[in-house]
């Protein structure tokens, strides 16, 4: 990386900055005044939930299951608080773009932000409020159960960044990759698979990726109910990195040294990329082999393709996000089973893709207070419980107290009104320390991610060997990290 003399840079920066301000005229002032408006106080004896009645706030979210459930059921919040919530749902890349641009200008179009830990929280932590400020303020209704009620790994992964104790977001959803399979097919062919393969094929934490591969191949060759054994979200897309990471970690490979900490808390300077390690290359080679026998559609699937293919009877199993359980149960009632992902040489890793919701630091006045009421309500026990029952898909709880409820526990077996809870056994293993898979939480992740999934995509297309792909990804990632981050 080129080094520059800081003094000169600063002077030039001031000059350039002044120039840009001059070019833009006095317009910058508009943004600045906006952010300073205080939250109006609570009148004595008034209902803390209703203090911002009549306010309208904007919530920007990825188009995920819990948001679909909340959008379909906003009336209770409106009745409780008198606050109107506009929900804007977007695909993740579009969301990241909007949020970053919104934080950029000093105005705050979006009060409540779906803060993807890697693409929003890490790069823009400074643009998100510290929620402890609201939780400590008596004039708001209390945060039920406190921050402690949230699953600790999730609170850190989705809500915090770096060494700071600040909590920027409350865990809102928690999609996690687990092994989803057609129970009916596995039961029907159990014995012949066992004879041919020499092991019990029933999916569980005991199976290895190598065995997963052999099962998939066996199904390709011997099963008529489905055309292919396995399917993967292997489009040139974020999803490809997610799918690959499961294998990477279970083989002992990682993105950076001390990957667990970089995943859980995050860092601005993660050091050198480790993707050229023998373990990483072995993982990449296995992944290439695995996708080569998978459903050919895999190369075009991102978040939803695998789920649709499973539901449509195109594949017998796949690593997929656990929140697809609701869709599976609708399409193939009672036929889909769930297990943690297979092991590699060093263990199992189940990619966690959860996200929190936070409040824009630029949100001000009554909107700022109203935003907290919404965040509080949207992650509350009652809302998480009703999301589980939602016909719009629903999410899964991020609070420990919800899992402890008898009715929720009862829902983990069929018949159930909360289909996502069918995955409870698998995800409770998947979220354990050492088994949860966390990608690096670094501000420049978006670009590193793109470099990686592009190289992986080239590998899957047969243009590069596993080693070449890993080497090229490493040199690109090192370059991106070395360039550093300016928000």
């Amino acid at each position, binding site marked *: 990386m080129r080094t520059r003399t800081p003094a000169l840079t600063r002077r030039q920066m001031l000059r*350039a*900055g002044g120039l840009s301000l001059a070019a833009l005229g006095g317009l910058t002032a508009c943004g600045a005044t906006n952010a300073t408006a205080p939250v109006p106080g609570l009148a004595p004896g008034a209902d803390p939930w209703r203090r911002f009645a009549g306010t309208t706030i904007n919530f920007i979210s990825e188009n995920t299951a819990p948001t679909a459930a909340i959008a379909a059921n906003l009336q209770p919040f409106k009745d409780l608080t008198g606050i109107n919530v506009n929900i804007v749902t977007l695909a993740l890349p579009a969301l990241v773009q909007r949020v970053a641009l919104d*934080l950029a200008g000093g105005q705050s179009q979006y009060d409540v932000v779906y803060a993807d830990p890697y693409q929003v929280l890490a790069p823009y932590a400074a643009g998100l409020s510290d929620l402890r400020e609201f939780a400590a303020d008596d004039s708001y209704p209390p945060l039920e159960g406190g921050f402690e009620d949230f699953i600790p790994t999730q609170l850190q992964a989705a809500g915090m960044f770096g060494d700071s104790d600040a909590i920027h977001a409350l865990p809102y959803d928690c999609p996690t990759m687990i092994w989803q399979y057609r129970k009916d097919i596995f039961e029907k062919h159990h014995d012949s698979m066992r004879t041919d393969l020499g092991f019990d094929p029933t999916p569980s934490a005991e199976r290895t990726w190598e065995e997963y591969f052999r099962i998939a191949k066996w199904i390709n060759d011997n099963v008529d109910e489905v055309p292919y054994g396995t399917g993967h979200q292997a489009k040139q897309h974020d999803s490809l990195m997610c799918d690959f990471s499961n294998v990477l970690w279970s083989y002992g490979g990682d993105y950076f040294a001390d990957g667990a900490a970089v995943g859980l808390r995050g860092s601005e300077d993660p050091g050198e990329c480790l993707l050229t390690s023998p373990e990483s290359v072995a993982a990449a080679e296995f992944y290439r082999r695995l996708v080569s026998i998978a459903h050919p559609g895999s190369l*075009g699937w991102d978040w939803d393709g695998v789920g649709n293919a499973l539901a449509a009877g195109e594949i017998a199993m796949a690593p997929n996000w656990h929140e697809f359980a609701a869709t599976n149960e609708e399409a193939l009632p009672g036929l889909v089973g769930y297990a943690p992902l297979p092991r590699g040489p060093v263990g199992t890793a189940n990619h966690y893709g959860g996200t929190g919701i936070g409040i824009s630091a630029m949100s001000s006045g009554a909107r700022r207070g109203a935003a907290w009421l919404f965040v509080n309500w949207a992650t509350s026990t009652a809302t998480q419980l009703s999301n589980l029952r939602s016909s719009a898909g629903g999410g899964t709880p991020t609070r420990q107290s919800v899992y402890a409820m008898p009715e929720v526990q009862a829902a983990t077996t069929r018949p159930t009104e909360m289909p996502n809870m069918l995955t409870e056994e698998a995800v409770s293993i998947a979220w354990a320390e050492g088994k949860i898979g966390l990608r690096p939480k670094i501000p420049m992740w978006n670009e590193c991610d793109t470099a990686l999934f592009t190289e992986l995509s080239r590998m899957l297309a047969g243009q590069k060997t596993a080693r070449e792909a890993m080497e090229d990804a490493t040199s690109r990632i090192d370059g991106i990290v070395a360039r550093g981050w300016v928000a």
Partner: protein
Amino acid sequence: MSADQTADQNTAARSRDAGDAGIGPTPVAPSARQHDRGRTGGITFTGWMMSPGVALLGLLSLIPLVMLIMMSFSRVRLLGGLQLEFVGLDNWIRAFSDVELWKSWVLTIGFFVSTLGVELVLGIAIAVVLNRLTRGRGLLLPLILLPMFVAPSIVGLLGRYMLDPTFGLYANLLQGLGFEQDVLGNPVSAFVAVTLMDVWEWTPLIALITLAGLSGVNPSVLEAASIDGADEWKKFWNIVLPSIKPILLVAILIRSMDAVRYFDIISVTTNGGPADATKIIPVRLYEAAFRFFDLGYAAVIGIMMLALTIMIARLFVGLLSEKETH
């Protein structure tokens, strides 16, 4: 060439075309110009007429242009208000030494050439066949033109729907023909697919332009050629094609400028993948700007694209003047 000459280029071109069609009078444009020139002192009437549009357009295009240039020499901070940190030629050096970026340029050129090539061949063929039709053309032409009005983003989404490996109509057809892979999942077929989506949308435009050109071909020359025993192909190659060549050039330039412009189709289908097989320059710019927020670097790519557009636009304007001198 002199300003006066250019000033006149359109007038003359138009008048001549109109004359061919039998409705136009002889060009008398110069007198109009003299007329205007007569009113000197202050802003002329035509100046007043242009001023609102020019002023608004100036605001909308020059300020962004200045910003773009400034950004290309800066590291751009967004959080807490916009700040430009001067970094000299850093972004430019990075862009010129970025292999991935050059690959994208090559791909972009490949994409232009293949979309344009297919569109031209198909468009001319359709126009020639339509031109031979004596009946039913009024009904057929509108149907052929339909794709031109479809929003490119919808073209992309529709393409995805048609090519989905599980339920897509075209994917189904291809599977029947033995192509089992996911069309948008394989680098070659994905490139072909997004090219064909563009072809689907814009071939009608080429056909329409060519058709207009064909109506200017002198029928008596064709007839003379027939009497001399030339076959259809020879007539097309030796008579029709040369006479519609200027119009085809216009079509090519218009299409190539639009091809640098739009990226909606790719952005809603493959978004550059697989294996970067469809990552044309606008997609890369968009990614650098709005996904990585590497705004200084994106500005460099933006300026490169602008330069290319301006080059094509020069050719286009040059072509119009040439038309006049002939």
